[in-house]
């Protein structure tokens, strides 16, 4: 069974290693090197093969770096290594590199969104502002490298915007390990707010355990729940905070498996669901139901052997429709879900 490369990286960041995960990752790594070697961006360089996939993989190894940032850094490297003499040539090279990145991992939404955002930026601004190709090129490289800072600043902005919504004595339910949500809670703890966090275990990643660890270090009272205990504890919860792997055009989010369930329970009990996501995760997708997105699979280790004729649902993520979300905290400000399509239209059309 195949495994989504995106979730592979997440697992690597979390340090969660199971035996079949190891086997999968080894197999995937050899596969990637083979395909990576074939993706030679032809910039006319004879002999030296530059691979955007390798570059991307190098960047995304860092646990603190978001997928989209790694993608944009890889594309910046493409520009640096290219021998194009005109903007048009450069754009074509970038398009090829971006397509190969996207096809290497079709399941990662923030990767696709990050590539699209950068391509859009290149095509829209370059022709208008600069007559000189070299200065345009160096500017593109500089902006792409600054994007890492933008992403980091984005998390800070989101944390600041959410501070008002966390009041003293509140109980927050968190699902999955999102670095943005971690930043929000960290800042609230630093501002000496008194709150307590309920963490779902987050099987099969066990991301909740890691989150509980991090929060305990900050002296925030944490309680761990198994995923099935969410409805049981929902009445003591004041708000639900989740991150997002991707924000889709309808204003809904794609996030770790279990988010939809929690949003449904919260909605039925009138609890607000807040999503913290950076704006470069906005993607031009419009899923109509759960199966509408490309499958992202993640093997589950049940601890006991499963007979071969028993099927296992291994999808790693689900789609939460916008009507169950209350507000989105992004670096563009606090948004209601209906604003997302507006932003995307402004960018792409």
């Amino acid at each position, binding site marked *: 069974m195949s495994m989504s490369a995106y979730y592979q990286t997440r697992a690597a960041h979390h340090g969660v290693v199971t035996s079949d995960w190891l086997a999968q990752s080894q197999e995937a790594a050899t596969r990637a090197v083979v395909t990576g070697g074939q993706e030679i961006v032809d910039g006319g360089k004879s002999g030296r093969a530059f691979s955007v996939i390798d570059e991307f993989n190098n960047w995304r190894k860092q646990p603190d770096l978001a997928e989209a940032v790694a993608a944009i850094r890889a594309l910046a490297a493409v520009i640096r290594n290219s021998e194009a003499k005109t903007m048009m040539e450069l754009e074509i090279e970038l398009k090829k590199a971006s397509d190969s990145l996207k096809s290497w991992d079709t399941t990662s939404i923030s990767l696709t969104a990050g590539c699209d955002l950068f391509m859009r930026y290149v095509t829209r*601004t370059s022709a*208008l*502002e*600069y007559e000189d190709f070299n200065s345009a090129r160096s500017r593109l490289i500089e902006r792409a490298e*600054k994007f890492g800072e933008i992403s980091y600043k984005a998390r800070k902005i989101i944390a600041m915007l959410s501070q008002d*919504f966390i009041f003293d004595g509140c109980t927050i339910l968190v699902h999955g390990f999102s670095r943005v949500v971690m930043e929000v809670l960290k800042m609230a703890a630093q501002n000496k707010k008194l709150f307590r966090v309920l963490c779902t275990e987050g099987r099969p990643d066990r991301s909740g355990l890691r989150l509980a660890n991090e929060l305990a270090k900050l002296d925030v009272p944490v309680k761990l729940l198994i995923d099935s205990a969410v409805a049981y504890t929902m009445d003591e919860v004041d708000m639900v905070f989740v991150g997002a792997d991707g924000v889709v055009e309808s204003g809904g989010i794609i996030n770790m498996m279990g988010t939809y369930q929690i949003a449904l329970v919260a909605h039925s009990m009138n609890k607000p669901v807040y999503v913290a996501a950076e704006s470069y995760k906005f993607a031009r997708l419009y899923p109509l139901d759960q199966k509408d997105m490309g499958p992202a699979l993640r093997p589950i280790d049940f601890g006991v052997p499963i007979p071969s004729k028993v099927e296992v649902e291994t999808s790693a993520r689900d789609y939460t429709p916008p009507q169950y979300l209350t*507000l989105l905290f992004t670096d563009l400000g606090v948004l209601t879900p209906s604003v997302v399509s507006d*932003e995307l239209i*402004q960018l792409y059309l």
Partner: protein
Amino acid sequence: MVAHGRQCKIEGSQATARQTAELLRSVISQQRVPYTNQAGALIDAVKAVGEQLIAANPVELAVGNIVRRVLHIIREEDLSLTTAAIGELNLSAVSDDENDDDRDGNTTLSAAAVAAAARSTLRPPSLQTLLEDTPVSAAVPQTSSSGAADKSSRSRKLKHDVIEAVNELIQDIVTCHEQIAEQAVEHIHQNEVILTLGSSRTVSEFLFAAKEKKRSFRVFVAEGAPRYQGHLLAKELVARGLQTTLITDSAVFAMISRVNMVIVGAHAVMANGGVIAPVGMNLVALAAQKHAVPFVVLAGSHKLCPLYPHNPEVLLNELRSPSELLDFGEFSDCMDFGSGSGSPLLHVVNPAFDYVPPKLVSLFITDAGGHNPSYMYRLIADYYSADDLVVQRRAIAGN
């Protein structure tokens, strides 16, 4: 005006908005602006006054709204002046080669680049501008304008334009009722039954306008305890020849099934589409939702607030005097602080406002037309700049 606001309570958001705008207009006209960065000086002055006004009456959101509108106007006018100046600069640069010494630093950036950069300072942060640099605002055209006479005329022009725009804003505030009332005919049809709560000038003008256009309809007025302003509204409606029925607030659920539409006013509209309205409104909204009756809110654009309510029942509410509920004479022994343990057993709470969540509102009618609650963020983006959400002087170091 701050003292005035605290003591003799200017009632009503329209009056407050108008006073605020007029005050800011006089602040701007009296403010002496330096030759460079005039917009910055004006913005600082307005922010200083605005901070005090907002602090004096944080519950009256119209004050903050108008301060932010004026700040947005200043930024906009500055922007349009600089783009016009760039246009002139381009022309003069082409025709006039002797002015080269003035243009030293600016040959690398074409006019289009500067215009694009200036445009992006005014737009709220969006996906389009995510990767762009934040440009040094207004520094470029300032250094390149030639001649002292030119500069002083530009500074006068900025103040003049801003004051003109603020006058337009005041005009809008004053005429908002008429503009909303114009849309009455589209919404009120023949033989309808309308329900309203308390008394709102916007609502009464709306209903009168429909009556003028020869629509015949009936009105149920909920009295709006504890101030009972519904009684006054009922009198006005009868004076205009409208069939009126007066009910208590508690009777709303009983009567709602006979009603076609609920039309109410608002104290403020928040960025998520939620409404701060006189107490009892949430009750009416819930009743309307239960019986699938459209709940229409009328609000002038000075009531649109760019903030998101994270604790509206507490932070945006005002507790009024208990004397509106109880007569002190009868209850003096229950409320006596001197007797017994020193703290009376009877507490009287009299909140002035209610929060109605956006999902209960069917339609907003503003002077800019009728809109969905999920669309309100767009109007807010049009009227306000993102930088002005927190009205604070720049003396505080960056976040």
